[in-house]
């Protein structure tokens, strides 16, 4: 197990602007973690720091076990798929993960089945619809059986039907024991999929609470203003 993940006074600066400001948090196995915050609060950057795509300017980010990079996966807002068939995209990921070539085909097919894309396995990935492409990105992550799955606003550019399908797959990941760490703008989605909320404001961790408590009784004025802004009718 590569969790808990310890973020210790981590900062990230880009173009002279502090994006993440001395942030400390421990992420443990189990509850699905939702990262909330306004645009520019640093949600995406924080996840990229955790995933190792960015290096903190100060502070540390440390996983527990060996070989942590190989045991996590990330799904981006806009899926990046290679110009090959759907199944070949999954097989490519398995190859990079050093899965023996005999096992790649069956594993890839199983992953496509789990997201409901088995019938489109031989279709060119880039010819799939936006929702299908995102499901394929999830299948690619699924095949790797990650211990931690990062999701950066995975449904931000999708219609409600596709969003529901994506959420079902995310719940399947959770049921299979994968730790979910997700940034989202969709507060309904946060409540449906999340167990705890990390609320960021201007690069700082302002509040951390169980989902229901966060929405009912936000402890910080920033979080209260954010919820009010996103759900003005509440």
């Amino acid at each position: 197990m590569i969790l808990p993940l310890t973020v210790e006074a981590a900062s990230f600066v880009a173009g002279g602007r502090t994006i993440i400001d001395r942030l400390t948090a421990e992420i443990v196995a189990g509850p699905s973690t939702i990262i909330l915050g306004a645009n520019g609060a640093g949600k995406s950057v924080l996840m990229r720091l955790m995933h190792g795509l960015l290096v903190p300017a100060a502070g540390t980010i440390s996983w527990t076990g060996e070989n942590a990079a190989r045991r996590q996966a990330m799904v981006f807002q806009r899926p990046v798929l290679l110009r090959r068939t759907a199944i070949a995209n999954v097989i490519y990921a398995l190859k990079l993960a050093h899965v023996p070539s005999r096992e790649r085909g069956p594993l890839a097919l199983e992953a496509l089945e789990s997201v409901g894309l088995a019938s489109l396995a031989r279709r060119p990935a880039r010819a799939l619809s936006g929702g299908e492409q995102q499901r394929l990105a999830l299948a690619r992550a699924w095949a790797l059986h990650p211990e931690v799955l990062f999701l950066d606003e995975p449904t931000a550019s999708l219609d409600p039907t596709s969003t529901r399908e994506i959420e079902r797959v995310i719940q399947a990941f959770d049921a299979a024991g994968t730790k979910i760490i997700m940034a989202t703008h969709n507060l309904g989605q946060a409540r449906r999929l999340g167990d705890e909320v990390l609320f960021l404001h201007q690069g700082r961790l302002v509040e951390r609470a169980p989902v229901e408590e966060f929405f009912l009784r936000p402890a910080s004025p920033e979080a209260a203003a954010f919820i009010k802004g996103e759900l003005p009718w509440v």
Partner: protein
Amino acid sequence: MDSLSQAASQALALVASGDATLGAIVLLSLEVSLAAVALATLLGLPLGAALAVGRFPGRRALVVLLNALMGLPPVVVGLIVYLMLSRAGPLGELGLLFTPRAMVVAQTILVLPIIAALCRQAVEDAWAEYEEQLRSLGASGVTAALTLVWDIRFSLVTAVLAGLGRASAEVGAVMIVGGNIDGVTRVMTTTIALETSKGDLPLALALGLILILLVIALNAAAAYVKDAAQRRYG
């Protein structure tokens, strides 16, 4: 006007008759230019990809230099290769001057920057899109570069074709290092230049016609390949 139409009809007759001299000249042109482009592709694609993905001191300067070299004047390349290969030159021992091989060398030098620079641009654009996803999947360095080049292979056809267009159309370099020797190093462009100055317009025009048709055919083929690939792979 009359002499032009006369020359044109004679040129068409020459093409239709399948004149042996004409055929030999066309064949040598193709051999030289295709060999040069093949060599330049072999060297240029990895060079371009490495420049696109690599991060090392002096990279910016190298990119600027490479772009500048796209506009190398053929006569200057011819002159330099001539000096290298001439009997007193550092490579004079090889006895390559005034052979088709010397022409291949000169055209390779001429075309290499074009293919490398266009490949660099294409790979760099793709890298901006793919980088995070590929790094997340654990691909880096050579693996990532190869994946990129393969994924945009149909765009790279355009780069190779630009090189072929340059090689088959240039006259300065092959004239100087080949010497335009009848039956040995005489190619389409050098023949056109020579025959025009001698006043043998039908032969010059016939070669010009073939040259243009070849270029159009090549471009049409490339466009077809690209369209078909676009439909198939997205």
